[in-house]
């Protein structure tokens, strides 16, 4: 069995590699602690954003509708589903359980959201994403995009940070 830095040693429990890959044990190194802090911050942000939207799916459905990209009924279902996906992925980032899956999903969601925002702006739509409730209602398009790209950048860093290096894998 190949050993990666993300896997506990066989002596720590003897679980199958597939099972182990969902859990990344903390390391004492400064780099590892930095990744952990970034993951907790980004995860916390997604949990907060998800909770705000889950509390009022009607408003979020309206926000999705403002993009004028999807039929209303689909927007409603997304408004009910996406906040919980954000909450779960945020918690997964913070606890490092199902970590890589959560980074993968959140990166995909952020990318889609950035594309949708740019397209909506190009179509001249005055949209409010409502991503963080009233806190971001007054943000300009430029600020919205800047924050989105920062989050996306953080997620990409987390993705890279969680990917085992070749020399580690083969050691």
């Amino acid at each position, binding site marked *: 069995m190949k050993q990666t830095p993300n896997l506990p040693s066989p002596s720590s429990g003897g679980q199958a590699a597939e099972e182990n890959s969902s859990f990344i044990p903390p390391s004492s190194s400064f780099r590892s602690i930095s990744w952990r802090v970034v993951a907790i911050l980004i995860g916390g942000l997604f949990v907060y954003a998800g909770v705000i939207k889950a509390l009022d799916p*009607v408003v979020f459905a*309206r926000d999705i509708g403002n993009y004028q990209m999807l039929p209303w009924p689909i927007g409603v279902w997304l408004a009910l589903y996406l906040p919980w996906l954000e909450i779960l992925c945020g918690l997964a980032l913070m606890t490092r359980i199902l970590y890589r899956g959560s980074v993968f999903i959140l990166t995909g969601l952020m990318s889609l959201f950035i594309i949708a925002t740019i397209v909506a702006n190009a179509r001249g739509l005055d949209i409010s994403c409502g991503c963080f409730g009233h806190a971001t209602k007054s943000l300009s398009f430029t600020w919205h995009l800047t924050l989105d790209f920062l989050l996306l950048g953080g997620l990409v860093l987390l993705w890279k940070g969680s990917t085992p290096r070749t020399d580690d894998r083969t050691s």
Partner: protein
Amino acid sequence: MKALLRQSVVLLALALLPAAVEALYFRDKISWQSRVADSDLVSVDVARGWGTNALWVDARPTIEFERDHVPGAISLNEDRWSEALSEFLGKQWSPEKKIVVYCSSQSCNLAEDVARRLREEAKLPNEIRILNGGWEAWVAQKR
């Protein structure tokens, strides 16, 4: 790669559960088929039939209101909400009258937002409807 996909599927599936519970909880509070519930809309014909029993509220930007508007309508948009609302409540509003809010077309959202604020923030007890098709429908009806 396999583990990544499995983790993603697990997360995607787990999120379905609370979403389904929330859908049940909100089943009567969400308009599932259209952005505005049919019961909140009113056609131009019906609204005109209400005559003086209806108060018309123009939710479009002020510049569009100044260009043309429904006779007797007041301009009440989000840009000058507080000022225009006080003016509306002071001069025209009456609790018995129906309120018809309109914006430029079927696809605009301004009327819906203004109607919601009149209900939730101003807490008006009136029957508040959104004009189906907005200003475009009004103009088309006049032709």
